[in-house]
């Protein structure tokens, strides 16, 4: 069967789509390398640069330490975004 003849259906999510509440803010974890991205986050503070407060930084010895398990666990527990920086 030719590919274009195949009927492709979008997989349906079991969850019902919900409206985003007006006061909703994403909860974000940032995984940051101790040597660069974590230092950059510090510098942002030293320079008094402002960014949303819903980002929490977890320091890693190197971004290479970032394990897919951490990302999966974060999403499993309802995190809205993961930011890996290094």
């Amino acid at each position, binding site marked *: 069967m030719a590919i274009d003849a195949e009927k492709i259906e979008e997989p349906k999510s079991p969850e019902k789509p919900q409206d985003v509440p007006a006061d909703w803010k994403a909860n974000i974890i940032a995984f940051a390398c101790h040597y660069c991205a974590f230092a950059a986050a510090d510098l942002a503070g030293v320079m008094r640069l*402002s960014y949303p407060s819903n980002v929490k930084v977890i320091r890693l*010895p190197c971004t290479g*330490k970032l394990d897919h*398990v951490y990302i999966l666990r974060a999403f499993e527990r309802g995190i809205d975004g993961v930011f890996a920086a290094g």
Partner: protein
Amino acid sequence: MTRITPQQDNKDRIGSVLVVGSGIGGMQAALDLANSGLMVHMINDEPSIGGTMSRLDKTFPTGDCAMCMISPRMVESSRHPNIKMHTMCRVLRVSGEEGNFTATLEQKARYVDPERCTGCGACEPECPVKVANFFNQGLDKRKAIYSLFPQAVPNTRSIDSVNCLYLTKNVCRKCEKACDAKAINFEDRDKLVEVKVGSIVLTPGLKTYQPEIRQELGYGKYKNIVTSLQFERLLSASGPCSGTVARPSDGGHPKRLAWVQCVGSRNAHNANPWCSSVCCMYAAKQSIIAKEHDKEVQSTVFYMELRAFGKDFDKYIDKAKRDAGVIYKRAMISEIIEDPKTGNLLIHSVGEDGKTVHEEFDMVILSIGFEPRSDAAEFSKIFAIDTDTYGFAKTSKLRPVETSRPGVYVAGTYQGPKDIPETVIQGSGAAAEAMALLGDRRGTEVTKVILPDERDITGEEPRVGVIVCHCGTNIAGTVDVKRVAAAALTQPGVAHAETIIYACAPDGQQKIRDLIKEKGLNRVVVASCTPRTHSPLFQDTIREVGLNKFLFELADIREQCSWCHMHDNENATRKAIEIVNMMVAKTKRLLPVTSASVGVTHDALIIGGGIAGMTAALSLVDQGYGVHLIERSAALGGLLTKVRANLEGDDVQAFLADTIKKVENNPAITVHLAATVDKVDGFVGNFVTTLTNKETISHGAILIAAGGAEYSPDEYGYRDSDKIITQRELETLLAEKGPDNQKTYVMIQCVGSREEPNNYCSRICCQDALKNSIAIKEKAPNAQVVVIYRDMRSYGLKEEYYSKARDLGVLFFLYTPDDKPQVEPMGDKVRVTLTSKVLGREMAIDADHVILSTGLRPQPDGDEFAKKFKLTCNIDGFLMEAHVKLRPVDFPSEGYFLAGLAHAPKNLEETVSQALAAAGRTGALLSHDSLTVSGVISKHNRDICMSCLACVKKCPFGAPFIDTDGRVSHNEVKCTGCGICAGVCPAKAYQVNYFRDDQLLAMIDSVTEMH
């Protein structure tokens, strides 16, 4: 046999060193000396250490932020137990002699007590005085109480007594009222301090040329003409316009940028006759970064000669041309004028066709050069050292870091213009010389701290203490610290929580120690500032009362919370609670980490018996270590055996013969001739190497000085005529027969260099051409000498010889690689034809000798060699160092060091500097009786490891290996704790101490709890 037997005599030598200057060169020297067990007094006259490099935005070729590279060095220097930092300090006089100097230091009043100042900066907004910010090159203003730059070390303000209202007019004292830490001390006075040292290393750094005097260039008159150092600050994210590059006249973003090279350099009139060595490369870097900032930027560089002479430099210029579209125009700029309506600038130049070109730019950057500091003359008198005619410290090219006064060494730009890696190299090289002088006094001036035994917490339930710091108002002004402490107290495992005004102040530290004892705490979280600078301090604090250092975590609620979420107190407080609870979750699971240590074999193995290997060997034995020197040929000497003199006229063969004699007669050096390495086993401190002659050698470090090869050309009919020779052959001809007044010598530069497949500059050929041209013209003034060149790369103080050659009547003609000169033997002459750029037509020269300036190549078997030691080569086949800028003689693998041509082409002086540097780095390592392995390393569990080899493939340090039983084992000595192995291991057989999976998952669970 392992050996530490430093030279001994009856002189009373002192085991400490004065390092004058705290830029990147001074810090390198200080850290190497301190690591070898000598006490270091490091002084500088500014309120912070860091020097010129701290002012740079980024560094090429990697585009790394300069501050990110230098900042860890600054913190390390400030925290090193063997380094005493004296900022705002200068040397008044020096008495005594080599081994035993007394230096009188003048410590300027800072008016801020560094013991009390927390670096919070609450004082600055209160200060009513605004003055030009010297650090940002006058582009913005600072206060009279100030920090030199945001990452300053020590992280404390100082009051500038010239501008402070109280110190000048007896009014104000506003900063004093704003300071909760009570750190302001107007009673502070200048003090005299005397220090006794065995040796002195001078690294005072440089001054940049002030271009106002060149009125035709309009600097100081037109706002949109800036110096290159000002442009660094404009590019810098922490600079006056936060890295957006704003035009001084109207704040607009300039699109058309022009760089004018050699401003203040290579010109004896109102400027300096030397080449500043670095401007060609920083202009390329700045143009690339400007393009990264703004895609619409179009850069033009007006240059006289493109001096991209260092390792991979030519490739970087190519990158600027290709990727950033930088236009390079060979032209001298005679005038820049401003369009008063727009503030734009008009540059008049003469194009390659000889016609005048007028171009308009939005901004012009003057590539200003280096010169000795304004106080250089006085400085040389204080230390009683000789200087050259320009005011740079005088050194022999054969002993490049020794000043005229024994025991006083020099490194960096005070010895002549040079870039960052060369400065770092000389820093380590000068340290090596001081280590050789004071080898027997190692450990005599430093104090060893005695700590109580660690408390065994096995089986104890976690009792976490949480200390929330106010940091004056820095945290408490935004974050409700009491609420944070109260929230922490509700967390399981927390035994106590309270707030402290300044946790890092001496009374705060004492409070923490008391709480650990009173409340029986076995783990501590401090919520304050960044762990990058403050963790070591608090770790020491808890260790002093018997808790393992790794039972501590720092929750960053200042840099990463209160400072970023000012005026949003509720959300900042919530975030601080989340951060602290996250750290509590981790800390509860922290386990004591013990650091293992391994013994050190105090011998070095040096591969290569050329001048680099021999210089390093002699330095190491002077420092007190044993050396095995491996040379694959039948004699010592290497490539230098073919060189008779250097550009400066030193007798190279006499120097070489003397060095060989010293090496052969030194009982601590074992020379292994006609031998190569078969295999290397072991790790840093404990290598075992087997040679091809079956000998085995135990050693603690490996220094690779395997050298390079001379290129033997195929170009220009070299193989067809005996009238076509190389520079080296000409050198021999001139030495044996002398130059001939009747003859014409034509030299062709860049033969086999700067073109694919060898697209790099061999660095020495221009110097060779100048050396031989001058030798001919001095003895035979009527001889005709013509040099056909692409760019004469007589960098640094070598410019003097380029101008001398021109004065002697040597002719220089330009060629481009797409239009090379033609060489054709004709009877007893050789006809050289080329297109003359100046005449605009072809010209022919009938030469008696055509001399090809051939370059250097890596060793022909370099790849195989690199593989044997698991090292990597760059695309040209030269060995790659650990870091281009800051670790130029180290390899990424611990215990491996590098010097000489194996690293990149370089001349004799540079080779000697680098060999000394490698010997200094090696010596600092070998000085230890044991090496402590860092606590934060990966732990391997063989029971669950499947030996899939994912870790073996991914580890950049070669720590995991296939053991004799065919399964994977992990060498913890090589491990740096990056955790890449843990990331890739499918069986989770690796856990990184202090970053264990259960600890990190607990943090993730904690941060997802509230939502």
